[in-house]
């Protein structure tokens, strides 16, 4: 196996992009990454595109060749990767393995989702189908409600408070205010966050990430040729994946995500690092409780300390560990199947020290954490500054 570098990144602004189709979003992100890397179309050997549910959201399956075709890359074999909310991260993992194995030298990985062509309730239903449709959703369990029940359990077991959940949202919105590609570029005080209408108690509107349109892409190459292109490289140092029961009710300790824990352990082992070595992380904060569980399960804080750590400000920009400098899913937005690639894009921006006002000071290692469904799949990548 050989080392792999990301040498180019591209992403669209995230939001309710009513005037752009999935095709256009994918092309803009992909061409952005290709331009940033300085590779030519002829050099690209494969594309992997993360996408949750284009079939139901825009009535189009087989979207990977469609995006490749309209990007002028109709010769390139292109494959869609689906793992619910972790589709993007899993696409990155596939690209990594294709290059690390020596099968390909230059690969484009992307993620794209168009959530807003259907109505809110339909979008909610489609997202809920990444939980166990037959044995959770059919009985009335929305995606929100499953995370709400995890939140309630965590609060009761560890004393996590609604205010601490709210502080995750406040922090991520304040980071998002510094990100020009974020859906919400505005900070909100805790009082506003806590006063928002309930969605699934104890979670309110500000505890839930929006459902967004957007796309992102990265160009991956083998390490030996990484410096022969324009784009400043970033090394992928570790990769780990994890799995768990599909339904929340089939898991025992629902204050933690086993899939995240396994993915993290594998990624740390591969990178030869420990949680304390990580300077910043993009974690899957589709709900505020998700970030609290993630920072515990990734080993940054002990189980139960996620809420207090957030309250202490340990996860704020340039504190103990900077969590979700991009604004996370909460403020940067949630184009579901693109999220994992959006996270990698942020990690590259940070490691290149191109993040402007939200720059982490002198970062060496960044981690990205992407979750599918309510935690039945998870993928973690660890990225390293090139030199």
């Amino acid at each position: 196996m050989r080392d792999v570098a990301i040498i180019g990144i591209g992403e669209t602004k995230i939001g309710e992009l009513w005037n752009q189709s999935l095709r256009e979003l994918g092309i803009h992100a992909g061409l952005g990454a290709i331009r940033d890397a300085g590779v030519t179309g002829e050099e690209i050997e494969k594309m992997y595109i993360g996408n949750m549910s284009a079939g139901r959201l825009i009535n189009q399956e087989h979207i990977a060749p469609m995006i490749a075709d309209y990007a002028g890359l109709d010769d390139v074999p292109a494959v869609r990767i689906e793992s619910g909310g972790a589709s993007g991260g899993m696409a990155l993992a596939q690209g990594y393995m294709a290059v690390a194995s020596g099968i390909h030298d230059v690969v484009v990985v992307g993620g794209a989702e168009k959530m807003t062509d259907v109505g809110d309730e339909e979008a909610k239903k489609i997202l809920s189908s990444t939980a166990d449709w037959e044995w959770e959703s059919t009985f009335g369990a929305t995606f929100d409600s499953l995370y709400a029940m995890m939140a309630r359990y965590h609060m009761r077991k560890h004393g996590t408070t609604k205010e601490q959940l709210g502080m995750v949202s406040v922090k991520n919105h304040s980071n998002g205010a510094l990100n020009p590609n974020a859906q919400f570029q505005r900070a909100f005080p805790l009082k506003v966050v806590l006063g928002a209408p309930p969605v699934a108690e104890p979670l309110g509107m500000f505890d839930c990430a929006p459902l967004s349109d957007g796309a992102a892409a990265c160009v991956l190459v083998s390490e030996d040729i990484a410096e022969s292109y324009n784009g400043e490289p970033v090394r992928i140092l570790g990769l780990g994946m994890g799995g768990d029961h599909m339904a929340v009710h089939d898991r025992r300790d629902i204050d933690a995500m086993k899939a995240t824990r396994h993915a993290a352990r594998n990624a740390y082992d591969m990178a030869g690092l420990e949680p304390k070595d990580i300077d910043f992380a993009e974690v899957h904060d589709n709900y505020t409780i998700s970030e609290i569980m993630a920072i515990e399960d990734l080993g940054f804080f002990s189980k139960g300390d996620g809420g207090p750590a957030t309250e202490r400000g340990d996860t704020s920009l340039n504190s103990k560990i900077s969590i979700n400098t991009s604004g996370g899913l909460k403020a940067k937005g949630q184009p579901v199947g693109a999220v994992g690639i959006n996270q990698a894009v942020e990690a590259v921006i940070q490691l290149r020290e191109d993040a402007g006002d939200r720059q982490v000071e002198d970062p060496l290692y960044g981690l990205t954490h992407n979750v599918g469904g309510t935690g039945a799949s998870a993928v973690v990548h660890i990225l390293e500054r090139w030199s």
Partner: protein
Amino acid sequence: MNIPRLWREIRQRYQGIGVECEPCGRVYFPPREVCPHCRRGSIGNLNEYELGGKGKVVTYTQVHEPMEDYKMMVPYIMVIVEMDEDVRMTGQLVDVEYEDVEPGMEVEVTIRRLGEESPSGIIYYGYKFRPTR
């Protein structure tokens, strides 16, 4: 939900039929083909098992933003229940005020209307939970 799928699941939905793993004694609902603990050793050794229908609330929420089919029920309570057989199920909790729900609360299965697939579609029924009487 289409008709074949409804029929396929009807015994589970109405009667709470799960399976018991012969080697380890664990009960699963809905039925599984393979016990995640015994794996190969469980194949062919999972026998039908009818749940008693009683259990305790593990965690709960009240839903205010529903999916389309559940609009008429809002707000409604969802629970994860640990059944006496040590298997957990997700369902709605009815016949109780949200303020009175708490973990550990004793509940039992009751068959109620779950929803309808579309305005012209079939009405389907299934289990919900209510406080044990």
